[in-house]
């Protein structure tokens, strides 16, 4: 082990350091100079501070881009191209979330709101860098606890409190599962780093997946299953999504999902490589792909079917994101390089699309007086621009070309088929996914029907601030661009993966 140099750690984690400082600055500025300012002004000023901090954090990320892979603190944290790229993604997601929040009533504790939001981002970024079980756990907790707090930020609203408590209870339970599972994994393999577990799996007899390790793996998957809201561990999601302030919903649905999926992929593909078993039709063998295939299939079916009967836009999007987690699990089940690329591509598209969709919902629902489906009636007349953006986001979620969501799905399914191209072993999962995306079109069209077809009771124009329109338009542009020109991003992701 190399001697610890704190300076090296700070330098390697420059972006996180900048964000910690920004959070403290935001708290201080709020306390020192903005206490008496009216709420909207405070929100906007502190939002601007946060935006500047986030923008500043891009600089250290950028400077590290072309440096070789750095391993810090005895393998607990890794800074390489892949993690830097995804940290950049997190920063972008946080930026948009802040922009949405600036237009939203987040309550009296504005400074705390932005500070906690940044802490959440730091948690996600650490999670992305982590390649050691305990660090993963700590980063995951930092993220989750920030999100619990944010969920409860609508202090006056019962819905928000209920959501936060539910989210917290489920989250704490899942953390317990995760920790318990990790303890088994450590007990069997004697290692906490993913590389160490991998080594154990390679050298141990019979593929390494003994009964104890299998239990550990199962519990780890249960823990992550809660975090990414996969069926049957999804119950918190609809309530939390509905109750949380909408910008926070956007944050939970995107930022934390990106980080969780990334680290789940690392744990499975690096740590538990060689224990994947087989989910190929007719040749099933125990291992994590089997678990992923089953829970993924359940998520696609239940998420899509339950979304059909929802009346609340946020709940609808919650069930849709459960279904999308199911699609992503198809890519993980493939357990190949192409599968990993597909998962990365899909989570980026998925995060941007959902962020945009929740952003529009946040902007419109606060002005239309609610987030039920009827509140969006006739929005195409009242807010044509945001409605057009919503059209793009929703169609991308439904997987309509030429939007990013379509290509993401296509690539996921292609990766699944490619993993066993001779015998089409995963075709069953792909067929299910495609059939379910046909089902999903139904409720996405229902949502669009309310926006575009139905007439509204109140025909007045809904005006939204320009900075918000521009931000959301940029997100929409990114969604379209990812669908039209996916090759550069695919090549980049492939290159980053190759370095792993």
């Amino acid at each position: 082990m190399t001697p610890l140099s704190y300076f090296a750690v700070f330098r390697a984690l420059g972006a996180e350091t900048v964000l910690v400082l920004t959070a403290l600055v935001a708290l201080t500025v709020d306390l020192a100079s903005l206490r008496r300012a009216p709420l909207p002004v405070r929100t906007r000023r502190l939002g601007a501070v946060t935006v500047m901090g986030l923008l500043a954090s891009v600089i250290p990320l950028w400077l590290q881009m072309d440096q070789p892979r750095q391993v810090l603190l005895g393998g607990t944290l890794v800074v390489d191209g892949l993690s830097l790229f995804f940290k950049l993604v997190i920063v972008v997601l946080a930026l948009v979330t802040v922009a949405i929040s600036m237009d939203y009533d987040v309550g009296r504790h504005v400074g705390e709101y932005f500070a906690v939001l940044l802490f959440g981002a730091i948690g996600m970024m650490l999670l992305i860098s982590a390649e050691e079980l305990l660090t993963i756990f700590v980063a995951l907790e930092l993220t989750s606890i920030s999100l619990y707090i944010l969920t409860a930020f609508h202090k006056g609203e019962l819905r928000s409190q209920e959501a936060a408590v539910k989210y917290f209870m489920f989250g704490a339970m899942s953390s317990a599962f995760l920790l318990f599972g990790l303890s088994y994994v450590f007990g069997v393999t004697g290692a906490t780093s993913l590389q160490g577990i991998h080594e154990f799996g390679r050298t141990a007899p019979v593929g390494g997946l003994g009964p104890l390790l299998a239990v550990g793996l199962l519990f780890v998957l249960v823990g992550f299953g809660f975090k990414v809201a996969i069926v049957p561990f999804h119950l918190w999601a609809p309530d939390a999504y509905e109750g949380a302030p909408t910008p926070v919903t956007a944050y939970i649905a995107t930022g934390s999902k990106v980080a969780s999926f990334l680290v789940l992929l690392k744990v499975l593909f690096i740590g538990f490589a060689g224990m994947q078993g087989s989910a190929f039709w007719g040749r099933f063998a125990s291992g994590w792909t089997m678990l992923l295939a089953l829970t993924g299939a359940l998520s696609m079916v239940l998420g899509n079917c339950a979304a059909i009967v929802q009346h609340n836009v946020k709940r609808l999007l919650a069930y849709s994101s459960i279904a999308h987690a199911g699609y992503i699990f198809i890519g993980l089940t493939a357990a190949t390089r192409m599968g990993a690329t597909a998962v990365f591509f899909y989570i980026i598209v998925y995060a941007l699309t959902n962020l945009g969709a929740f952003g529009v919902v946040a902007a419109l629902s606060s002005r239309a007086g609610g987030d039920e489906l009827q509140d969006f009636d006739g929005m195409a007349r009242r807010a044509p621009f945001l409605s057009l953006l919503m059209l793009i986001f929703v169609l991308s979620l439904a997987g309509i070309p030429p939007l990013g969501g379509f290509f993401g799905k296509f690539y996921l399914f292609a990766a699944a088929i490619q993993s066993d191209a001779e015998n089409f072993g995963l075709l069953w999962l792909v067929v299910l996914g495609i059939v379910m995306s046909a089902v999903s079109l139904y409720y996405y069209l229902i949502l669009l029907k309310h926006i575009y077809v139905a007439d509204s009771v109140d025909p007045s124009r809904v005006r939204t601030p320009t900075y918000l329109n521009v931000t959301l338009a940029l997100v929409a542009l990114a969604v379209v661009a990812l669908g039209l020109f996916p090759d550069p991003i695919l090549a980049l992701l492939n290159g980053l993966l190759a370095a792993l």
Partner: protein
Amino acid sequence: MMRVDWTIYLSFLGAGLILLLPRESKNLIRWVALLTGVAGLLVALQGYFVYDGWVREMVRSSGGLQTGFRDVVDVPWIPSLGIGYHLAVDGINYPLVVLNGFVCVTGILFSWNIENRVKEFFAFFLTLIAGVYGVFLAMDLFLLFVFYELAIIPKYFIIAIWGSTRKEYGAMKLVLYSFVGSAAVFIGILAMFYSTRERTFDILELARHPIARNVQLWVFPLIFFGFAVLAGIWPFHTWAPTGHVAAPTAASMLLAGVVMKLGAYGCLRGAMLLFPQGLEYWRWWIAWLAVIGIVYGAAVALVQDDFKFIIGYSSVSHMGFVLLGLATLNVIGMSGAVLQMFSHGVVASLLFAVVGRMVYDRTHTRQLDELGGLAKVIPFACVTFVVAGAASMGMPGFSGFVAEIQVLIGAFRMSPWLTAGAAVGILLTVAYILNAIHKVFYAEDEHRSTGDHGSHGGGEPGAAGHEGAGESRWDLPPITLPERVGAVILMALLVIIGLYPSIMLDMIKANVEVFLRGMP
């Protein structure tokens, strides 16, 4: 000279431009849409002079499959998956591109009276048009699929917002049917991609490398029937009548005129070309389903009370001829099928224009029992319907005759029973068209007398006589100029193709021959 792919870009540009215009300036929007449509049509038409000589040359020379096509543009799009932005023209898709141009222009003319949300209507309309151009021109299976799906979504909004009878139901049914069909296609495409060694989506490239027979046998039906849903193949046709009826006039015209051809074209390009052995195995199924569709569609059309449903079911019947012709796998039958795509596109557009715009928008009813005597009030509509109806029945001198007779001859070579079945459909067609003409445009006296007997119970003969002798009971606004122009364009097409079919048939035949050379 502009390349034919500009049809796609112009339509997209037009849609984008319309989005930027203020929503109050409705006339400006209409004119922009019309000019876009006309520009697209002109670009499509001038392609004839660019490619025609080349097509003729190709007829004489006997080359491989590749010679049947002329590339318009071929650049890599997503090279890591072997996906290219490859557009090409041949004798089969060129007539359909032209058809789309005509239906687009006339559709806009027949939508001139739309007042509600004009801006969004034309934006959706032109997006749909662009998607359709794209499908017809695409020579890359992935690209074709992208355009195909791109064309699905605008239909939902056009029908759900501007439609009539059960519009939301009709729109959702149509979209879900086509989406389920395209889901099957999607599975088929993926399976095909990974069962070839070439790892490409380029249709021409794939067609040169045969795919294993056992794969062909199960992938072919997925792709074929996936596309055939949109072609209205029986028993997956039920979206068509409800969708056509619910749609506003321009959308009915597009749906029946062009969008159903997307399905048939997809079958030809995506399934038949790439899976000859699968086709060999399945073609009897296709042929008989097509014949059932012909007879069933015509029979159901005969008993409809709703004017628009008659035309809706007639589309199912006529698309049966296309699928039957495709399944014959001989030059005459397949050329007939492709010409029938063009011919029915024009006929269906014209029929829906009469039903939706000229009649329903004026009378606000489509019930045969409530209509009647319109020949006196709007004679132009009557003439138009008679011409379109005659073409629909397969009267010599109109394009329908040239197309259907070829399909029947082709089918006879496959099995006389098929022709016998399809001929029943033609008889029924004559019956329902004449029935509709009679009840809608004439038959005033019948209505009068039954009405009188019902309400007055044999009241004063003087009053009844007065009504009978006096003005019609209809007081309808006259046929407007845009309607006349649109109708005349489409009628002219019917007659031109009917009298001088080789203007299209030559290039179609040439390419069908090339196509059949690739068959086992």
